[in-house]
């Protein structure tokens, strides 16, 4: 099953697949960001990955491409997990939204936008979720200082 899933994926998307590996039992596929929505829809419909368990991003500063979008998928039918990643460059931090494939992606993508500043094309309501309007910068980026606060009201002395 191990190589079968990754092999099937490579066969289906030979050009878009950048890398596949399995580390400590976690099977991972890295694809080009253009193919993300297409691959996601195929994984859901044909391979039965009905759950988008998690969607997040990682900032690999100073590496280029700087960001990586990470989705954890789960198939309740086959009881199987897959990690789907795609690199996103800093100069054009845009990816296709997965809200059309899994409606649960809505808030996950808002959080990634809020924390990393990645934009999702086709997202119905992309705005900050954890931080507030008027907050500048994206806190989980590696170049955002840990203790840089942006108060909404003046602090007492």
């Amino acid at each position, binding site marked *: 099953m191990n190589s079968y899933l990754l092999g099937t994926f490579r066969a289906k998307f030979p050009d878009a697949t950048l890398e596949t590996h399995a580390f400590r039992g976690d099977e991972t596929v890295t694809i080009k960001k253009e193919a993300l929505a297409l691959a996601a829809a195929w994984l859901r419909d044909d391979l039965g990955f009905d759950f988008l368990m998690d969607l997040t991003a990682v900032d690999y500063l100073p590496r280029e491409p700087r960001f990586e979008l990470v989705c954890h998928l789960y198939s309740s039918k086959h009881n199987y997990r897959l990690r789907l990643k795609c690199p996103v460059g800093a100069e054009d931090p845009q990816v296709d939204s997965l809200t059309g494939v899994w409606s649960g992606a809505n808030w996950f993508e808002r959080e990634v936008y809020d924390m990393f500043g990645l934009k999702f094309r086709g997202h119905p309501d992309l705005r900050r979720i954890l931080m507030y309007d008027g907050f500048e910068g994206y806190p989980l980026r590696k170049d955002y*200082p*840990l*203790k840089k606060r942006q108060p*909404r009201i003046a602090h007492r002395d």
Partner: protein
Amino acid sequence: MGLETVFGHSYLTTRLDEAVNWGRKYSFFQYPFVTACCGMEFMSVWASTYDIARFGAEYPRFSPRQADVLFVVGTVNEKLAPVLKRVYDQMCEPKWVVSFGVCATSGGFYDNYATVQGIDKIIPVDIYIPGCPPRPEAVLDALVKLQEKVARESVLDRKYK
């Protein structure tokens, strides 16, 4: 501005203080501003084992206008700070603030872009309770300390507008 200010610091006002403070300290109406983990211990203080009702402070008012004591229970972050300030401003005098747990007191071990380093950056605080979260015994101890503090106040202290 009441009649008592006419008498100044005299026998009449000290007798009045005692009567008023006795009433105030045994019937705190609290506003639980519960945000985080400390809320779990706050629930324990409320429940039968520790029973805050023994101290006359069990009655929560969820309208700030009807509350005497603001319990800030848990972490306050920058997003929540205006809300806290607003709740405090809406409370009528006399009012007291209890900072419940280290996050409310000093930010605790959350020292980053999101958190306020203690609610005293936002509003004045009367009693700080240490602990992450404080044990119920510590909360009851703080309540008794607040009662002692209230007992020392004079009706002339607070500036009624």
